[in-house]
């Protein structure tokens, strides 16, 4: 009896003494509800941010945006003619549904990517075959060399994601329950309220140290909760009140308030992206090169950026397509950037025989900086002799109208700096801009087929120069993004597509 009581007492004490381990949860405020959990079928950043924790690709990008292996063992062996890619897969990788990953899954996934993904389709006509050469060997054969292929395979946006072949639907149907090989798997999802990611215990991390998206994905937090918060002020309040550990895409004017907080700190993501004026080369006023040159000459880029971002902490007047520090950086052609020369523009309009047809600027207030830039530009363009028609619509309408070349001359958008210039489709005649010029088209073709990195860099410099000379599209400058994180949070690299697998709280 005594022994029984002693045992029972010991057991009770053990229960009392055992600490209840609190779950380590990272709460992340994102700008909206992801409309799909399948990154293959969407080019939205919010989809990439969430899904990269669950679904993986063969390759990824490291901190310096160089391609690095992820599900592939190493970088592929590329044949001398640049047409054959031999890919060896990592072994022992498991999907979160328990099945093992092998070459059949990769082949089925890549075939779907070529068929349904926007970025996959851009390369589909250049791919001859995707074949399993063994249980962990895949071969991609190209009809012509295509240098951006690895970047496309590494990108988390319209991603060449690897799924179990069993869940891939025939035709262009949707995947019902997305599973992947990533460090987390989908938990509970209440649309517009939260999306819970829970640690995937069968995950096999890479051995290399973490380096950007590459290397070890640590599975540090037990859970990551993405909370869609469409209103930027609400994201700020949630961050400052301690409700969120990380908040994406915050308004520039909240910088000082966040900096003064004892709970959170601002994170400035320098050279996040570039606002652009997309030019209609298919129809309308700007099919006339002289008028395009007048447009470029008249625009006051510095004033536009100041109006858009209000504080030079958030922008840089820079005409190079890639900022200093990137491999792709070049100043070729940039002497035509920020001319701010109304007299020259007037002269060019005269030479073009401009008849006062309004220049239709299609823009939206979804991104207030687009609209502010347009307002400043309108005055400068009118001073230079343009008649300007501002078509201010909501984002949905802009998305629809820009597909009809009869409805606009310029539309305003922006892009992050993408790791590979060829991922920006505006360089190519097939884009909705329809920018086609014999010499430029030849350069664009050479750029994607050349496999020597040094030669590609030289061709890109020529392309950038050509963009200024022919006014293909207009880069307004560089801008920084403002993010915010809890002072207790560590291990998050600033990125346009932030990830949290190595994040922890002090």
């Amino acid at each position, binding site marked *: 009896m005594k022994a029984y009581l002693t045992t029972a007492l010991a057991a009770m004490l053990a229960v009392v003494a055992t600490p209840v381990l609190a779950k380590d949860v990272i709460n992340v405020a994102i700008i909206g509800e992801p409309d799909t959990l399948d990154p293959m079928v969407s080019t939205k950043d919010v989809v990439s941010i969430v899904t990269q924790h669950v679904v993986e690709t063969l390759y990824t990008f490291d901190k310096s945006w160089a391609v690095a292996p992820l599900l592939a063992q190493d970088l592929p062996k590329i044949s001398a003619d640049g047409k054959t890619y031999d890919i060896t897969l990592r072994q022992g990788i498991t999907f979160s549904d328990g099945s093992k990953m092998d070459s059949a899954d990769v082949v089925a996934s890549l075939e779907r990517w070529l068929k349904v993904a926007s970025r996959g389709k851009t390369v589909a006509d250049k791919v001859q075959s995707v074949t399993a050469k063994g249980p962990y060997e895949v071969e991609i054969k190209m009809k012509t060399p295509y240098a951006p292929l690895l970047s496309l395979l590494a990108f988390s946006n319209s991603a060449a994601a690897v799924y179990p072949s069993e869940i891939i639907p025939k035709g262009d149907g949707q995947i019902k329950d997305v599973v992947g090989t990533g460090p987390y798997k989908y938990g509970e999802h*209440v649309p*517009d309220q939260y999306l819970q990611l829970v640690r995937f215990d069968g995950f096999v991390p890479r051995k290399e140290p973490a380096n950007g998206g590459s290397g070890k994905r640590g599975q540090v937090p037990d859970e990551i909760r993405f909370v869609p918060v469409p209103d930027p002020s609400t994201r700020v309040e949630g961050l400052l009140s301690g*409700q969120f550990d990380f908040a994406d895409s915050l308004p520039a004017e909240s910088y000082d308030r966040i900096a003064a907080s004892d709970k959170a700190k601002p994170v400035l993501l320098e050279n996040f992206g570039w606002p652009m004026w997309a030019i209609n080369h298919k129809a309308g006023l700007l099919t006339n090169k002289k008028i395009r040159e007048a447009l470029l000459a008249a625009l006051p880029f510095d004033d536009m950026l100041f109006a858009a971002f209000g504080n030079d902490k958030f922008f840089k007047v820079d005409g190079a397509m890639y900022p200093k520090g990137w491999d792709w950086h070049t100043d070729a052609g940039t002497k035509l950037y920020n001319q701010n020369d109304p007299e020259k523009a007037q002269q060019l309009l005269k030479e073009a025989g401009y008849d006062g047809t309004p220049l239709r600027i299609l823009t939206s207030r979804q991104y207030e900086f687009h609209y502010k830039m347009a307002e400043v530009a309108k005055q400068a363009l009118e001073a230079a002799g343009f008649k300007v028609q501002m078509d201010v619509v909501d984002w949905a309408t802009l*998305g629809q109208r820009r597909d009809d070349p009869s409805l606009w001359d310029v539309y305003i958008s922006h892009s992050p700096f993408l790791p590979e210039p060829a991922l920006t489709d505006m360089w190519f005649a097939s884009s909705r801009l329809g920018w086609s010029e014999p010499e430029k088209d030849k350069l664009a073709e050479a750029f994607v087929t050349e496999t020597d990195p040094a030669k590609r860099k030289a061709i890109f410099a020529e392309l950038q120069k050509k963009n200024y000379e022919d006014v293909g599209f207009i880069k307004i400058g560089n801008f920084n993004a403002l993010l915010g994180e809890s002072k207790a949070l560590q291990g998050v690299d600033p990125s346009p597509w932030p990830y949290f697998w190595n994040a922890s709280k002090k």
Partner: protein
Amino acid sequence: MRNYILKRLFGMVVVVFLVLTIAFVLVRLAPGDPAALMLGPDATPADTAALRARLGLDQPILIQYVTFIGHALRGDLGRSLFFNEPVLSVLAHRAEPTAFLALFSLLFSVAIAVPIGIFVAYRRGTVADQTAVSGAMLAASVPSFWTGLILQRWLATDLGWFPASGYGGPDASFLDRMGYLILPSFVLGIVNSALILRFCRASMLDVLGEDYIRTARSKGMSESRVVLRHALKNAAIPIVTVIGLTFALLVSGAVVTERVFNIPGMGNLVVGAVLRRDYPVIQGTLIVVATLYILINLGVDLLYLLIDRRVRY
């Protein structure tokens, strides 16, 4: 009475059908392409066209309308283009926060407005009366998003008394979720209390001048009995009407408040649906809201029977 209810229900069917048709036409008259929004900024025109075809948006509008009506008659309001689930299920998920937000804010409104309205009507012309009337004017004039932002910053961010936004995570209990609604309900309650207070005051003023109130006083009744038993009962019909209308408006989606506090209710849903051009959700929300509005009005009309026995239908 039964005939009256049946007549009202028949009227409701006609109104809902009209709402259904108007909603269908209006959302399609608005420019904007749901397929382009769903695919993201880098989708090609060909991808967008393919998705439009898959969603049935490339069909002639008449065929879309007939299909929609046919499904609606069978109780199927279609599938959300964005969430890819039935509209009724999407709406059902949003019902809890919106219903409780409406209920709590109505309770706040009534708790603030009715006692003050009665008191200031009784003390007509005093400083208290003028202060209450001016306060009500101010509360009605200040936009609810402004009140929401100020109180959110002060009470949630700075003082930490309430959660700043949202409706709780996976581990939130029912009580936790209700905790998220206190501050938004208070914000919404303040705005709506202005209207109820003014109606309550005006209605009480009308009644307090009636002969039967004088008679009651001359019979030696206490003032509290005169005001609360005789005056309030007779002033109740306009007050109940305005409370009913306020509740119907609240249920139809406290759009701005839900947005500011990021509450996943019907108001937030419909704003998102408009921005995403999620036609079935917009249509479904309008139909559900119209039905609720009519039912609440019917409920209020039937409540008159309890309040005033002279009322006959």
